[in-house]
């Protein structure tokens, strides 16, 4: 036998197709619930369409149109739901990211210029979160959700108040207009809004704004636009959201009552301009922009006087709308400019403009003061300790919350940071200890070599105490850190262990892959040279192309060992082997001349492997079916499949547990039957005598004079049925039983118990007479003297 069952177990896939079995119908492929639903939907649609069209029942043009419209609407509804879900996920991710970053800033006292950072945070996330800078929050529901999320995430009441204040800082008209448009447009305009914010950068100066104003005026007036005019307006007004916003402002102005507006503008405007006189130029621009947005005419107003004089914008509703629109642009530009100034300054850019003296301007001295400033460093250190402690105690939870899953990487990163911190403390202690020792030694030396000086002694003593105090403090901190780090270290150890296992596995896999590649390369190189034989190991290619490494064989299976490693040493040998495996390799041309081009050969081999795998897969199904549905053991099922496939022998287990060999057995071919017996005895049964073998033998032993019986008898004689060790005895007995009239023909076999046909006295006499050379074994067995 070339391949014992152990090889089969390692995917060698020797068992072949069992198509004629009939005992294992191909299982019906189960559709996933999603595909079932899809299939159901398609059926519904088809039915609806053909019915409405008139194939069944009363169809009509109207019915058909309605059906198409309904189907379309349904599809759109489904996609809208998907889009909503995706948008929700995106918003959630942005929100989580925002909260994580904000928390990092709020809990970490060492961020460079927190104030500018916070402003930057708002600017960046503002654009992502669809928030138009500091105060213009588009969607009321979104705002509520946002505030709610802040509460849930433990943000302070001040945070919530800040949000509300920001929103309330805007005139109702503007706020409502924006909310209206967003509600009307839905999420479709978010991209446009972001583009608008980006494009505003093109209109930084007053000249550009004036150009834009002219372009807008022309467009509103329906004046045909020149190419230059179009270029001027393209950046802003070609943005659909901006145009909608502008139109909406104009509508608001058209619908409102100027009298009511006037009072409101004057009342609210007066509140807005408070502090205008002392404000920086940038803050003044912001105030003016807000006034414009609420409908005031800034040029006609007197913002410096006390009380200020606020004049509503009067005249053409279009121009009033445009005034508001320009206010919005100005606000955005001024705000962006302010943030940029703060940010550049915070980042230390050369040539950055000095920050205006507004309320949000960071303290300049704080940034430029030398880092060695005692007071500042004390503050930094204290805050750093406090913040570190808080971060340590909250780190894990914060990571998990903030990063929306997969906290592991953040945790590990955090762990590395903490360990660095601890190492820093330790290094510091070492340094201090060295310093202390130096001072102590010096002091001792001084005491020895000179007269003690009281003042010098006190100074040294104080220094030593200070150093000791610092060491003590640091030790306390290290202890705290250790308490925090310990569980993390355990976790880290586990993680490292897992990573190592994965790396080892990867390494092994890579090594195996490398070996396979080497084998392939060697085989291919060998294919290019003559002579081919003795150089290319066919089985290496076989194994390599089959996607697996060469399998180490069981040590006790010499035959397999030889087959795998010392088997056919060249490609022709491989072809022979494949054919022995039952694979049709007759069309493989393994002549040397053709093998100079190995690609065709490899392709053929790959196709064969694919075919083999398909067949093996089919066999696996059959075997599984027999095991699951017929309750055969795995070995029995394999044997049944093998008998059918290799030898055309159908066999089935009967309800009473016995085995029945079906029609198709060539019972008159002794050699064939011997093969079957071999399979049963030594093949897939792994040297185990099973009921199946017993059934087979007893099937034959019913008449030992027939070929099947003879083969069964030989099998017994061949080693199974003591004392019938010699196959010649089987033949001899068969001949005697065939010759002597009336002799029973049936034998039976159970392990260690063979019952052979026994002659009566008359038959014994006949045997003695007709077979004078009868063997001693048979004489003994039959008690013939």
């Amino acid at each position: 036998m070339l391949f014992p069952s152990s090889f089969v177990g390692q995917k060698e896939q020797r068992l072949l197709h069992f198509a004629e079995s009939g005992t294992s119908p191909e299982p019906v492929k189960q559709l996933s619930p999603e595909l079932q639903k899809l299939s159901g939907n398609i059926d519904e649609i088809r039915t609806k369409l053909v019915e409405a069209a008139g194939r069944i029942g009363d169809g009509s043009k109207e019915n058909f149109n309605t059906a198409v419209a309904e189907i379309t609407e349904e599809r759109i509804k489904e996609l809208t739901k998907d889009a909503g879900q995706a948008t929700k996920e995106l918003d959630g991710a942005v929100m989580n990211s925002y909260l994580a970053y904000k928390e990092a800033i709020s809990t970490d006292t060492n961020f460079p210029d927190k104030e500018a950072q916070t402003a930057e945070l708002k600017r960046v996330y503002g654009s992502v979160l669809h928030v138009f800078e500091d105060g213009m929050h588009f969607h009321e529901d979104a705002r509520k959700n946002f505030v709610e999320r802040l509460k849930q995430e433990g943000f302070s009441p001040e945070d919530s108040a800040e949000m509300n204040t920001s929103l309330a800082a805007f005139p109702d008209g503007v706020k409502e207009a924006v909310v209206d448009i967003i509600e009307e447009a839905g999420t479709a305009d978010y991209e446009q809004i972001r583009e608008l914010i980006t494009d505003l950068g093109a209109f930084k100066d007053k000249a550009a704004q004036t150009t834009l104003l002219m372009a807008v005026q022309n467009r509103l007036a329906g004046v045909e636009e020149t190419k230059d005019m179009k270029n001027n307006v393209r950046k802003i007004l070609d943005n659909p959201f901006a145009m909608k916003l502008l139109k909406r402002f104009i509508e608001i102005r058209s619908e409102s009552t100027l009298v009511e507006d006037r009072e409101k503008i004057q009342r609210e405007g007066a509140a807005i301009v408070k502090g205008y006189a002392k404000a920086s130029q940038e803050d003044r621009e912001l105030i003016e922009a807000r006034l414009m947005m609420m409908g005031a005419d800034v040029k006609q107003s007197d913002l410096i006087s006390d009380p200020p004089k606020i004049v509503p914008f009067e005249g053409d509703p279009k121009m009033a709308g445009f005034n508001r629109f320009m206010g919005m642009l100005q606000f955005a530009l001024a705000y962006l400019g302010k943030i940029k100034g703060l940010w550049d300054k915070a980042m230390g850019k050369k040539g950055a403009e000095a920050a205006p003296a507004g309320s949000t301007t960071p303290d300049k001295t704080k940034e430029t003061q030398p880092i060695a400033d005692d007071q500042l460093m004390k503050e930094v250190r204290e805050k750093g300790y406090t913040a570190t402690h808080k971060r340590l105690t909250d780190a894990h939870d914060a990571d998990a919350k903030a990063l929306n899953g997969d906290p592991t990487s953040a945790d590990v990163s955090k762990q590395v940071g903490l360990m660095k911190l601890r190492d820093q403390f330790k290094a510091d202690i070492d340094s201090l200890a060295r310093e202390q020792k130096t001072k102590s030694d010096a002091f001792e030396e001084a005491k020895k070599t000179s007269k003690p000086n009281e003042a010098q002694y006190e100074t040294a003593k104080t220094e030593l105490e200070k150093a000791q105090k610092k060491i003590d403090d640091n030790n306390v901190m290290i202890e705290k850190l250790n308490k925090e780090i310990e569980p993390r270290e355990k976790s880290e150890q586990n993680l490292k262990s897992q990573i190592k296992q994965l790396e080892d596995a990867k390494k092994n896999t890579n090594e195996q892959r490398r070996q396979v590649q080497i084998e392939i390369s060697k085989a291919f190189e060998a294919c290019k040279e003559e002579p081919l034989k003795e150089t290319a190991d066919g089985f290496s290619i076989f194994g390599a192309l089959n996607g697996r490494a060469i399998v180490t064989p069981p040590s006790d299976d010499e035959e397999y060992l030889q087959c795998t490693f010392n088997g056919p040493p060249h490609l022709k040998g491989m072809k022979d082997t494949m054919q022995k495996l039952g694979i049709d390799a007759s069309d493989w041309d393994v002549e040397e001349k053709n093998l100079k081009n190995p690609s065709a050969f490899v392709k053929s081999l790959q196709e064969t492997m694919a075919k083999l795998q398909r067949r093996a897969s089919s066999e696996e199904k059959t075997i599984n079916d027999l095991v699951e549905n017929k309750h055969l053991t795995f070995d029995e099922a394999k044997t049944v499949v093998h008998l059918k496939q290799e030898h055309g022998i159908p066999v089935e287990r009967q309800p009473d547990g016995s085995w029945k060999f079906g029609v198709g057995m060539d019972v008159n071919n002794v050699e064939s039957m011997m093969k079957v017996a071999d399979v049963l005895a030594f093949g897939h049964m792994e040297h185990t005598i099973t009921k199946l073998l017993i059934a087979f033998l007893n099937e034959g032993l019913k008449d030992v004079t027939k070929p099947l019986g003879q083969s069964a008898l030989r099998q017994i004689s061949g080693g199974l049925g003591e004392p019938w060790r010699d196959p010649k005895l089987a033949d001899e007995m068969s001949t005697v039983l065939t010759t002597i009239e009336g002799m029973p023909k049936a034998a039976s076999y159970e392990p260690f118990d063979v019952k052979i046909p026994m002659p009566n006295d008359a038959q014994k006499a006949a045997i003695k007479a007709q077979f004078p050379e009868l063997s001693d074994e048979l004489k003994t067995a039959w008690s013939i003297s």
Partner: protein
Amino acid sequence: MADPIPAAGTPLPLPPKIPNGQEAYDIIMRDINPELTSANLKTLDAKYKDETPEQRIKRADRYAKDFEEFAKRSKAFKDKQDTTVSSYKRQLRTATEKRAGSGDATRMQNLEASFSTP
């Protein structure tokens, strides 16, 4: 000394554009049968005003196949959209980690400085 303080301005990726239901429907259907895009549905009446019942039934069969193809492609569309969302979330998380990590370097810098203070 620690490295210079990293700039916190790591750009945040902008969220991908998620087409609304109608846009998505049109994107998918346009390649299958432009007749069935939302804008063209209104024109079908005029286009097939002289259609016989038999022709209508044939059209129904054709549309049924189109919607079947649509069902397959819309699933692929959704899968791709989900992948895009996941990818964006990953990008955002990475960017956030980078931004949020800028304080750590500063802290180490300050601590080093503080220890060097007598």
